[in-house]
């Protein structure tokens, strides 16, 4: 009986001393953290993808609170949570929400196995960065997609998958959060973050080849030859041709699709538009209301 | 992997001759069980497309495990040992190349702790047709432990002489032990083969044997109840451990200097555990302990970098 009593007393005393020490430490060494940071963190998706440009969601919460104190949330956007989340955060912090358009990752290459013949077999490490450092790749186009899936491996949202038949990655626009990881991973800067567009409709040049027209046509059937017809045709001045390659500025494009019709090599792609009424002159449009981006296969 | 298996053949064949059908059953069961478990885990738990049983590592683990067991061990215990060795010692860490501890030793020590009675009954050589009913006797290690406990030097007179320990003592009443430790000469032949084929380098086996020899020589000179160094080196699983178990690629350090540190530490630990520990055999535990230190050794002992050696004058 005695030994039990002594044990209880000793342990009890240790417990009390420990409690006092812990209490004193928690008071003396307390770090003040703005409680709003924790509240904002709760509202953020918690994916820690880095798409906002900060280290994880806690870094973003910190930046948002600092921004609120400075008076504006300009430049701060969580692409994963989107407008909904930003709205909730703005309400919590008592601020006006910064306006931003939904973006999506766009793979600007249509050099599928059918369009771009294979001229060599690459037997090295199957990673786009390694293949890019080794040479032009397995085709004659030194700018096109290498098809090893560095972009697929880096996506945290399972939004980009390599199509086994075409060899080109395809973005699922419902899952894509435009965090930009795939664009950074691509060694050839083929993937670009562009505006999603109304009803998901967008027009872009599906080629980044900077070789002269004759050379790029030999490498790939649907390459941009830099002829400039699209630049002349565009009524909004959204297209520029530089280094034998055309580029559509998504901020100016009004989706009229005149460039799509005029392109001689069908390098310009329009996505999510309804089926053409007159089949003979609107060969390029895709009929796609499902939300999955499709590529042309000529 | 297959080179090591060839190097083990002399020791294996000699052991079969000495221990008879029991040893064949033990080794065959061990190999079969190890291969089976690796195949099953790969196929059903990990769902790998390519099964790794053909690279020879499961078979090697099986043979080494078998050679660490007494030849009268029942089959069901061997199978449990193989499950431990492959399942826990190798596959949980990620398969080939990822394990921290030597799988055969993990299996052996698990069995030693779980089935101490069966694992410490040593059949005496020369009984060809007996398996689980073989007559058992004391091993040289047990005799040396007894001498230390009693403090009586005359106990050591029961030990076989060094020459017969090298060749394997054939007489009833001497030279009992695990299947693999019976014939030092066959193991040395295996070492010579592996050195010739450049499968392993000399650092680990020689440093272990040399350290044990020197340490036990010092002890023997200080107090004769400790056996003489030649007997110590040839007894127990020291030769088998130094040549085949400690030199396992995956669990040993990557640089020659690191390997020497590893070997010397194993030698010291073996002698300490043998003389002052609870178990008569210290080799398996010493190797397992040093396996845990291998990542640390790899981290701090780096190869000599080009440009760091002092420069000579132009010759």
């Amino acid at each position, binding site marked *: 009986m005695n030994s039990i009593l002594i044990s209880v007393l000793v342990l009890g005393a240790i417990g009390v001393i420990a409690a006092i020490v812990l209490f004193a430490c928690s008071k003396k060494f307390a770090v003040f953290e703005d409680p709003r940071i924790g509240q904002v963190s709760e509202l953020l998706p918690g994916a820690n993808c880095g798409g906002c440009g900060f280290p994880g969601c806690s870094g973003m919460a910190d930046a948002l609170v600092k921004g609120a104190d400075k008076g504006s949330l300009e430049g701060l956007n969580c692409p994963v949570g989107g407008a909904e989340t930003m709205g909730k955060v703005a309400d919590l912090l008592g601020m006006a929400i910064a306006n931003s358009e939904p973006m999506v990752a766009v793979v600007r290459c249509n050099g599928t196995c059918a369009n771009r013949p294979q001229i060599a077999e690459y037997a090295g490490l199957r990673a786009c960065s390694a293949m890019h450092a*080794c*040479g032009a790749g397995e085709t004659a186009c*030194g700018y096109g997609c290498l098809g090893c899936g560095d972009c697929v491996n880096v996506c945290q949202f399972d939004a980009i998958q390599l199509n086994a038949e075409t060899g080109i990655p395809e973005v699922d626009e419902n899952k894509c959060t435009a965090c930009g990881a795939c664009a950074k991973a691509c060694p050839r800067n083929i993937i670009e973050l562009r505006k999603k567009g109304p009803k998901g409709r967008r027009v872009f040049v599906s080629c980044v080849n900077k070789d002269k027209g004759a050379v790029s046509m030999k490498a790939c059937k649907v390459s941009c030859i830099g002829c400039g017809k699209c630049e002349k045709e565009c009524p909004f001045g959204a297209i520029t041709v530089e280094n034998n390659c055309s580029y559509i500025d998504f901020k100016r494009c009004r989706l009229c699709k005149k460039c799509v019709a005029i392109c001689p090599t069908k390098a310009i792609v329009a996505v999510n538009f309804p089926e053409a009424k007159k089949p003979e002159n609107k060969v390029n449009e895709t009929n796609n209301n499902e939300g999955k981006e499709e590529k042309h296969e000529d | 992997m297959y080179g090591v298996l060839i190097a083990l053949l002399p020791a294996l064949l000699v052991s079969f001759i000495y221990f008879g059908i029991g040893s064949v059953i033990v080794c065959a069961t061990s190999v079969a069980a190890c291969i089976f478990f690796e195949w099953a885990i790969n196929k059903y738990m990990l769902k790998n497309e390519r099964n790794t049983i053909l690279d020879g590592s499961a078979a090697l683990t099986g043979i080494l495990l078998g050679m660490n067991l007494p030849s009268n061990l029942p089959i069901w215990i061997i199978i449990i040992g193989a499950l431990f060795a492959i399942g826990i010692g190798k596959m949980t860490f990620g398969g080939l*190349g990822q394990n921290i501890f030597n799988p055969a030793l993990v299996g052996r020590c698990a069995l030693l702790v779980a089935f101490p009675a069966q694992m410490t009954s040593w059949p005496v050589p020369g009984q060809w047709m007996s398996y689980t009913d073989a007559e058992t006797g004391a091993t040289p290690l047990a005799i040396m432990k007894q001498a230390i406990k009693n403090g009586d030097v005359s106990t050591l007179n029961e030990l076989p002489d060094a020459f017969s320990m090298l060749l394997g003592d054939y007489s009833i009443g001497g030279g009992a032990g695990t299947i693999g430790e019976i014939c030092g000469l066959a193991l040395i032949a295996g070492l010579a083969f592996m050195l010739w084929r450049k499968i392993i380098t000399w650092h680990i086996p020689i440093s272990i044997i040399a350290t044990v020899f020197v340490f036990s020589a010092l002890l023997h000179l200080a107090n004769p109840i400790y056996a003489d160094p030649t007997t110590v080196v040839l007894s127990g699983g020291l030769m088998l451990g130094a040549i085949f178990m400690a030199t396992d690629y995956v669990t040993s350090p*990557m640089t*020659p200097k690191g390997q020497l540190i590893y070997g010397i530490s194993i030698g010291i630990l073996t002698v300490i555990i043998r003389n002052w520990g609870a178990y008569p055999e210290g080799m398996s535990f010493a190797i397992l302990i040093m396996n845990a230190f291998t990542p640390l050794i790899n981290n701090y002992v780096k*190869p000599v*970098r080009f440009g760091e*050696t002092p*420069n000579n004058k132009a010759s």
Partner: protein
Amino acid sequence: MKERRRSMKIKTFMIGGIHPEENKLSHDVATQVAALPQQAIFPLSQHIGAPAKPIVNKGDKVKVGTLIAEAGGFVSAPIYSSVSGTVFKIDTAIDATGYRKPAIIINVEGDEWEESIDRSTKLELVKDHPELTPEEIVERIKTAGVTGMGGAGFPTFIKLCPPPTAKAECVIINAVECEPYITADYRLMMEKSDEILVGLELLMKAAKVSNGYIGIETNKPAAIELLSRKCATAFANSDYQVTVVPLQQRYPQGGEKQLVDAVIGRQVPAPPAIPVNVGAIVQNVGTAYAVYEAVMKRKPLFERYTTVTGKKLQKPSNFLVRMGTPMKDLIEACGGMPEGDNKLLAGGPMMGKALTSVDVPICKGTNSVTILSGCEARRQEQQPCIRCAKCVGACPMGLEPYLLAKISELKNWEKAEQEEIVSCIECGSCQFTCPAHRPLLDYIRQGKSTVMGIIRSRATKK
């Protein structure tokens, strides 16, 4: 144990190294002069440093030895036409990097040389030319566009003017040719030994040193004997001390740092240190010959000795080829591309660059065109690393390739820098010895280029 290599009779470098099969198929094939191509392609970037700037236009007529592109900066070199004809266009062409790069393309007409070039075969000696001061020699080398002929392509004149912190003590001629298959340097030594020794003397004079070494591997006994004999007579009564150093056969003995270690026993510290920091200037034997031609014959660099070889090739040969000749011409001269899958390499099988086109031209650094058959070149299936440490034993820089490859795979760039990944010379010894066929060098290359990019951006931020 390492000290044994130092005291052995035939020297070699201290750490690591491997012994691939020699395959010197064209060892005894005398050099033939390659036929002139129909069209010569001159990529503007054939050397380390800024690309050259073209000074000719479409339609211009050029002769052999006409300047067609001037140096694009300090670390750069001019390019001279190796053919006479008309400039067809200034366009892009596939070069040894595998990509289309700017190049000058010339249609070949005839074989008219510039008058300033001395085409005689008379051996000019340094002692007969008192006007050749060290500065004059360097100037002539610079004007002639001589770059490293061993493959790297570093402008030679820069090596001869070391930075003020380093003092040159000797010139080492790299005649090692440690890569399998390649025999161009060996044939050059056998056929132009006198000129090479004059070239060496010019290099020693320009660098203001009196010690010279010629490192040759023991698999070329005839060359060792020939050059030793000629050295004895050529430098008998001069102030220069030139020794032919036979070296043990071991790859990568031809690496600058390994050669300096083998010949004079000094190890160059980690980058940014270079061999001249331990007193050695290393030049390829082909560069020594080019220096002779540039200084004594006023002949700019436009042709070179190249081996075209491969087990399946009908006639592995050595050529004296004009730069700009497409590889396919040489391959045709050797009997054509073999049947089946082939791997075309600019260089040797260890450090050569795999190409996807036979139209790639011979450039200043193309010492060989190697054709490996599909079964020889194809990699075996990768297996997990069994930590056998064979790569650690093979690495000539004392690194741990298994660790660097793993760290690069996991993209841990800080740890990669700590483990000295920038010291890697990309020789491929680790990947060659790995029994599990792991692509060690592929990962390490990725890691090294990323870490070097990080270091560069750190330096520019400061």
